[in-house]
């Protein structure tokens, strides 16, 4: 158990170090998120007061769209120079490869969110009045679920030639319950409504996270064997 | 009434389309079998 964790940390450290060396994925994702915000500001006039209603949705739209960009690279980058074969033939559990990738992707997407969500609030002139703690908790729970399923499917679709196109098609329908919960909970947290309602959604998100984490951890072995 | 007709015609059209697709696959396979037999007789 401890070796699985320490191996996972090693793999996550490797991914993050190579990422921080070039900072290419993170900067691309952040720019892409900003561009999505820009396009949305044309679609919904930000000076309009009613636009506040779409802010919770936008938070998740930019997270998912920018996140998919990063997830696409997560496993296809390992295919260059046959790194994936090296990882597989090493004395590591498949579970720790998965865990390591989840940790690395989670860190990267969280960093992108740290940049893009404030940008969203500034550009849409949104004054944050809700409770910050709940907001952060909801964002983290939602992002974790997204990364858990996303990393798994990224490994799955990396086997295909058109993996960049396959990943969103596989991922988005599976994410739908999480997104419903995340958007509703974010809306409640931002509008400072009765927080008890958000807790029900947060429970749903945690259940989703746990269930899919267990399923993906168990099934990841088959993906690694298969490719 | 028109809606009822619309619904049922949609059902039977789609079912028929799927059966046609299955039939096409079967035809394709029969063609391949013929080809194989020709090859076999050549050997």
């Amino acid at each position: 158990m401890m070796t699985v964790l320490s191996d996972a940390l090693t793999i996550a450290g490797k991914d993050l170090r190579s990422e921080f060396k070039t900072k290419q994925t993170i900067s691309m994702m952040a720019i892409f998120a900003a561009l999505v915000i820009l396009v949305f500001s044309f679609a919904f006039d930000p000076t309009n007061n009613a636009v506040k209603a779409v802010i919770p949705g936008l938070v998740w739209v930019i997270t998912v769209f920018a996140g998919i960009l990063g997830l696409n690279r997560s496993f296809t980058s390992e295919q260059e120079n046959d790194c994936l074969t090296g990882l597989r033939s090493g004395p590591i559990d498949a579970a720790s490869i998965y865990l390591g990738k989840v940790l690395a992707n989670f860190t990267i997407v969280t960093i992108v969110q740290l940049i893009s969500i404030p940008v969203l609030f500034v550009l849409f002139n949104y004054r944050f009045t809700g409770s910050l703690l709940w907001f952060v908790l909801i964002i983290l729970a939602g992002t974790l679920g997204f990364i858990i399923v996303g990393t798994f499917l990224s490994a799955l679709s990396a086997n295909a030639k058109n993996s960049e196109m396959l990943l969103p098609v596989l991922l988005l329908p599976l994410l739908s319950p999480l997104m419903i919960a995340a958007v509703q909970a974010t809306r409640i947290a931002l509008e400072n409504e009765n927080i008890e309602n958000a807790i029900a959604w947060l429970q749903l998100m945690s259940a989703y996270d746990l269930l899919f984490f267990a399923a993906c951890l168990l099934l990841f072995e088959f993906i690694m064997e298969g490719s | 009434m028109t809606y009822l007709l619309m619904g049922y015609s949609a059902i039977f059209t789609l079912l028929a389309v799927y059966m046609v697709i299955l039939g096409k696959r079967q035809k394709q396979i029969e063609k391949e079998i013929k080809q194989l037999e020709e090859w076999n007789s050549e050997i």
Partner: protein
Amino acid sequence: MIKIKNSGPIDRILFYILVPAMFINLYLIFIWSPVERMMGEVQKIFYFHVGTAWVAFLAFFVVGVFSVLTLIKPKMERFIYAGISAEIGVLFTTLALTTGMVWGRASWNTWWTWEPRLITTLILWFIYVAYLFVRKMDGSWEKIAKLSSVFGIIGVINVPIVFMATRWWNTKLHPVVFGEGKDQTGGGMEPEMLATMFFSLFTITILYVFLLRKGAQIEKMREVIKKAKNNVINKIAS
């Protein structure tokens, strides 16, 4: 010579049950069963709507079962059954959605409402179209069998969660876990209607089993031919 296993006695029996059952079913729906007082004739879509929706969920459950079996022990047959079942599932989900839309248009005057069952069915449709895309990947069948089974299992796990989430969403944030939703049948049903409904369920399930067996036979034949072709090519080459 290549031996081709054509439809066996079970298929013939299924076929001879299916054809008369379909005609009896249509007779029951259009002539025998009473006309609903509130909705009128349009209510007769209901019988096929429920039947196709039930088969759609059944087909996806079958995909899940065969996916688990494939992972336990990869066998061509299991892989084929999972694929054909997903295909038929997509077909019946499409049927359930279209009949649902027509009925909705007739009785609520909208083609689409964001009602939990509708959303669940729609998302189910997307998941299994994605599943068919996974199967279209190139590579050895063992590899695709593993990948698609993994996706099939994840997809099946997702369905109840989608239903829960959409239900909570729809009831405006007041969690109901189980219980009565919006009753689509319009209150109590007359016994004739209930009988017709069950007969439709029976007929459409038979149709599903028939199509499943037919499709699987064709796919199996295709595999046999592929092998035979390779043999012939090897013979010619050597």
